[in-house]
């Protein structure tokens, strides 16, 4: 097993960067430099960790880099980190998204604070993905709200205050259920085995409980995660929030924080309460499919690009949920892969929209037209990201959606059939949006749009590379995910998760 120092560094490096940014705030550009340096170190570290990760540690299953320190026994508070094949992908995504957000969506207003909040958000998100303790996860999960709130209100659009408040209240209320669930589970475990209060994932993993209890706890957890993802009908905060947030905020929210929801659903709701899954599955499948169809339909009708991506994300979250709850291994692997791919793809979308918005001062579809004339590179980049999102074979989106759908067809064929319509709809709304924004004649301000600068092109390089590479050669990544998913499935299988 590897030392947990790597994971601790992953959490600490962004915080150090944030501190450095605050210290040098009076010098023009220095805090940005501090932020970018921290982001680079973080990305390198994440990649190193991904390569070091060993999926077969004797005695720990697929968990690596494990370490647990109890901080306060009466509170059940512990610092407990570990990494498995599911979280390793999220770790890389977190580091990558920070990097993209900093480089692609620089905001020079009060730069030190901006960089600091972004780095803090990254640290807290990273810590949530690395938490191997339910209470610790909850604390960091909740904590991500604070930097998100300040990023949205501080640098967002004209209605950002309202949007941020809505976002905060929705998520905070959702977390209330999670909090109660976490505490209840902890005491359930304590009353069962005695000893001090603990929230260790490893310990709670095998708590015995009645079917009814499992259902209630699953629901309590699922509400919080459904709000965060978002899943229909808890999605109403997301379009306005994504639209009003600054570009970096939209990138972080949709590419990263949304994944906290689906990751939590997989790891904590399904992982801890497998008993509840068979009876809740119809409900969850229904919500997933509604998210897919509803998101796709509204995306067709939405007037601006940011909301379009928001609704398209809702549909994608539906796909991920579908993959998680069907219980087939293939679909679950696909869901984890889609979490990563969707992160890269939406980050790409929001970055390009940000570039356009900076020049045109608007992201309303009606204001934009014919941009492929003056800006062919933007058009090309958008095309790649869009095709990946639609699920064109050979690009990353295809692999993950395909895995989810064949897994679903194997276990819940009719749900798969309905979900497939979502894929078609995605092609419709994205191509139509492309048509309106990029094709036709560019007149007025649209003709004066200049094409991507060198730095903007460089920022998009990792996005395009990942889209293409994971589209043609996903095997190394799938090999990392599979053992952990297998382990999870074996744990939940006795409760009839597999049909």
């Amino acid at each position, binding site marked *: 097993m590897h030392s947990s120092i790597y994971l601790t560094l992953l959490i600490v490096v962004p915080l150090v960067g944030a501190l450095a940014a605050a210290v040098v705030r009076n010098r023009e550009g220095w805090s940005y430099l501090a932020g970018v340096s921290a982001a680079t170190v973080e990305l390198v570290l994440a990649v190193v960790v991904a390569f070091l990760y060993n999926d077969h540690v004797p005695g720990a299953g697929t968990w690596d880099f494990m370490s647990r320190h109890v901080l*306060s*026994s009466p509170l059940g*508070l512990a610092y407990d980190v570990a990494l498995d094949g599911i979280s390793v992908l999220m770790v890389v995504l977190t580091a990558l998204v920070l990097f993209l957000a900093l480089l692609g969506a620089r905001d020079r207003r009060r730069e030190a604070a901006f960089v600091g909040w972004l780095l803090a958000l990254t640290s807290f998100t990273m810590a949530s993905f690395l938490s191997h303790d339910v209470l610790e996860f909850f604390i960091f999960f909740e*904590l991500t709200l*604070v930097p998100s709130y300040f990023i949205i209100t501080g640098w967002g659009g004209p209605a950002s205050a309202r949007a941020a408040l809505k976002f*905060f*209240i929705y998520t905070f209320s959702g977390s*209330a*259920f999670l909090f109660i669930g976490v505490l209840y589970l902890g*005491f359930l475990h304590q009353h069962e085995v005695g000893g001090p209060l603990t929230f260790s994932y490893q310990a709670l993993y095998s708590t015995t409980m009645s079917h009814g209890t499992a259902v209630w706890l699953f629901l309590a957890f699922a509400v919080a995660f459904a709000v965060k993802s978002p899943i229909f009908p808890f999605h109403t905060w997301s379009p306005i929030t994504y639209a009003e947030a600054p570009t970096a905020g939209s990138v972080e929210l949709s590419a990263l924080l949304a994944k906290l929801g689906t990751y939590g659903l997989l790891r904590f709701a399904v992982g801890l309460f497998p008993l509840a899954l068979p009876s809740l599955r119809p409900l969850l499948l229904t919500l997933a499919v509604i998210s897919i169809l509803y998101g796709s339909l509204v995306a067709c009708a939405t007037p601006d690009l940011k909301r379009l991506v928001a609704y398209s994300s809702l549909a994608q979250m539906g796909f991920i949920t579908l993959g998680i709850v069907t219980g087939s291994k293939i679909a679950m692997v696909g869901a984890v892969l889609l979490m990563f791919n969707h992160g890269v793809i939406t980050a790409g979308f929001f970055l390009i929209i940000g570039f356009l918005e900076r020049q045109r001062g608007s992201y309303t579809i009606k204001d934009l037209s014919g941009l492929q004339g003056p800006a062919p590179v933007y058009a090309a980049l958008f095309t790649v990201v869009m095709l990946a999102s639609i699920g064109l074979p050979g690009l990353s989106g295809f692999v993950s959606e395909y895995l989810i759908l064949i897994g679903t067809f194997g276990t819940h064929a009719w749900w798969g059939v309905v979900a497939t319509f979502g894929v078609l709809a995605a092609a419709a709304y994205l191509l139509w949006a492309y048509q309106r924004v990029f094709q036709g004649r560019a007149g007025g301000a649209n003709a004066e749009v200049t094409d991507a600068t060198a730095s903007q092109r460089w920022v998009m390089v990792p996005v395009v590379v990942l889209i293409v590479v994971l589209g043609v050669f996903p095997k190394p990544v799938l090999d990392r995910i599979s053992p952990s998913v297998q382990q999870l499935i074996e744990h939940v299988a006795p409760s009839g998760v597999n049909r």
Partner: protein
Amino acid sequence: MTGVAIPSIHYLAILPVLIFFGAALALLVASALVKSKVTINWATATTVAAAAATLVVAFFQWRCVANTGASTTVAHAVVLDGFAVVGTVAIAASVLLTALVAHDWAVRERVAGADFHILALASSAGALLMVQANDLIVIFLGLEIMSIGLYVLVGFDRGRATSSEASLKYFLLGSFASAIFIYGVALIYGATGSTDLSSISYFLGSNVVLRPGLLYAGGALLLIGFAFKVAAVPFHLWSPDVYEGAPTPVTGVMASIVKVGAFAAFLRVLISGLGTQLDTWRPVLWVLVAATCLVGASVGLLQRNVKRLLAYSSINQAGFMLLGVWTGSARGVAGTLFFVLTYAPVVVATFCVVTLVGGAGDDAHAIDHYRGLARRQPWLGNALALMLLSQLGAPLTVGFYAKYTVLAATIDSGGGALALIAILSAAIAAVFYLRWVLWLYADSDGDDAHRRVAVPSSSAFVVAVGVVVVLLFGLWPGPLVTWCQHATLLFLP
């Protein structure tokens, strides 16, 4: 020689009360004797010294409790246990901070003399007595001593009509509540034959009360008395008006010292004295907690005056403190103790910022006055934002663990639904805290230099202490939580 038998007195136990009364008396006598008026500097110094001395005494009290166990003294009327020591620490720390806030306020408002500090010391001595009292009569004495000082303090700002109005309101309703309380004491005495909590507990534990009407009536009246003092819904109506009218440092006292004293006595009466009747009063308290949490949070949404807003905020917080009372368990007692212990300094520091922003005349309390504060004065604004986030319950602040401890205790006692109501009320309350925070970071509209708030050094110290409490125990709550868990009540059923 025949006469009254003097009960044995363990002086260490009552030393905090003696110090506070002694300091108050010394200041009183000095103001009468010294030819030129006792300056505010001397008064503040005396108060701070008394509070600091009490903190030292508390240390020795803790050692005594740890070595020889909890004990009662003065004919079982006063108790020295870990619980009392923690309560004493909370009160002494709040008095120390409040004295500093009041000092700057007094200098700004040109309040000369030691009157304010004398009253504050006497009033706090009452709170100290409540923390230690093991007898309903002594609790009543503490309650009255605390309240009478406060009635005057609330009306201390003689130039402002709202202050006198608040004073009258608080006095009328407060004395009414005291009357209800003492009537409850009488009924309990009638039902159990004693006012001593341990005797009451013993009586109820060894006898079956066949006709419990008297007992229930007495318990209900006591509950109302306490609910009034901690401003629990539906006995909260006085608090927004009084919070708004009172001089701001006094509002801080009401939100900190009064809450500590009242909650300590509340816990002791219900759990030590009436612990055997747990099943009877718990449903009543359930309703009280739910109403307090929800009303505090939702009515707070409508407030534009920060003092009223903080009044509703503290009603909401009181709901959380009541959660620990509701559990009736050792874990719940420790939770409430931790809550009041950490809430008190933070709320005093919050009111310190409000005092500063209030400006000369102490009336700039509309939320508009906070527009852009964190932009003009980053330290002050960020400190306030941090303390508000703590009261909201954001993780990595002490407020999170305060809520955590009481909620955990509630769930452990089977109150999942109640815990959910409470935490959802916190989500509602988050709206007004965040709106205020947002106001701090809004772009200010010109004339900045004019609106800078003067921050005298002792106030700066208080704010700094608030920030340190929020962050230190937010990052490292372990030792303090453990301490509160060890500080158990004597006569826990």
